[in-house]
């Protein structure tokens, strides 16, 4: 028997770091691999932590499990659920999926040695929320499906009818879609504190049959997104359909690489 330790060893999985967190906020949430979540604190900083088996979360286990989309989905959803629960109580900075220490001492050392970095990141996201925006080419705007069922009494729809008639090919609609996506992104970025674009998602992961033209995240003060909605309304959406996701933990706006402790 050579791998006893691999089956019995435990590690501390860290989801993220919060300030002045009430541990009760996260104790009801189920963490990765169904584990309970606890708080490991040092000063005002609190790391959200679960105990995990290194057989599953050690380096060989992770390498194997990361190739398993089912495992990855369960783990990613659990990671997100813990952070989403914590952010209701105050600012949280998320750590990248699968940040694992051999024990809580390592987690406390992280908070001690890198406290200033976490403090700065927490200040940056405090009172702010991330919103996701996805714009799809509206299938109803495809030339093949633009049968005229618009209300003839409305000048707006009459204009759109003429506009559609000008666009003979799917290619033209697609170029119009790409241009409108840029217009929307510029308008929403101007209304937000920070913006970040993602590549469009593939339908095989998202399960979405429409073509995604814009995939972006915006950081905004407060918990509503009224000013972002307004920016979209003013920019116009044709021939796209715009959908929001969120509010998100500010994943997209805390990207920092922290060097190992001194």
């Amino acid at each position, binding site marked *: 028997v050579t791998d006893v330790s691999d089956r019995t060893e435990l590690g501390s999985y860290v989801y993220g770091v919060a300030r002045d967190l009430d541990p009760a906020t996260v104790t009801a949430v189920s963490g990765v691999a169904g584990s309970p979540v606890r708080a490991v604190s040092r000063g005002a900083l609190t790391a959200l932590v679960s105990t995990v088996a290194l057989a599953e979360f050690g380096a060989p286990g992770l390498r194997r499990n990361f190739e398993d989309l089912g495992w990855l989905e369960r783990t990613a959803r659990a990671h997100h659920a813990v952070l989403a629960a914590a952010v209701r109580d105050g600012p949280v900075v998320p750590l990248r999926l699968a940040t694992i220490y051999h024990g809580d001492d390592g987690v406390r050392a992280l908070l001690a040695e890198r406290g200033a970095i976490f403090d700065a990141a927490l200040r940056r996201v405090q009172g702010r929320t991330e919103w996701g925006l996805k714009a799809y080419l509206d299938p109803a705007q495809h030339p093949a499906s633009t049968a005229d069922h618009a209300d003839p009494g409305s000048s707006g729809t009459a204009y759109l009818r003429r506009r559609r008639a000008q666009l003979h090919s799917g290619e033209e609609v697609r170029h119009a879609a790409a241009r409108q996506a840029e217009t929307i992104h510029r308008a929403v970025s101007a209304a937000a504190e920070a913006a970040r674009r993602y590549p469009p998602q593939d339908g095989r992961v998202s399960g979405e049959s429409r073509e995604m033209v814009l995939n972006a995240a915006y950081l905004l003060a407060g918990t509503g997104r009224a000013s972002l909605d307004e920016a979209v309304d003013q920019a116009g959406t044709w021939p796209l359909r715009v959908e929001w996701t969120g509010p998100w933990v500010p*994943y997209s706006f805390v*990207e920092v690489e922290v060097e190992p402790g001194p």
Partner: protein
Amino acid sequence: MTGGPHSYHRSPAPQADLADILERVLDKGIVVAGDIRINLFDIELLTIKLRLLVVSVDKAREMGIDWWEHDPSLSSGQPSLLEENRRLRHRLEELEPGMHTEQRTDRD
């Protein structure tokens, strides 16, 4: 808003989509060295493999969207994302013989 064919659709926020979560938790957030590290090369493979799943390169390029090819955050440390994707397509086919990857990243 009534949700007519041209209007701006405000969707409620139901349970988040897997693709939305993955693109945020995998290589966003604070990156800190834990005690348990998977080999950096493996992480590169993983993120590129997931980008293959998440990015629909052809569809996007068809619409004239190719900004990521000039985005250093998507190609940092890589000789070329396109080259890397080409190599990884073969690896993907080995790993997931049932999944056909149709992304073409070649310029020709």
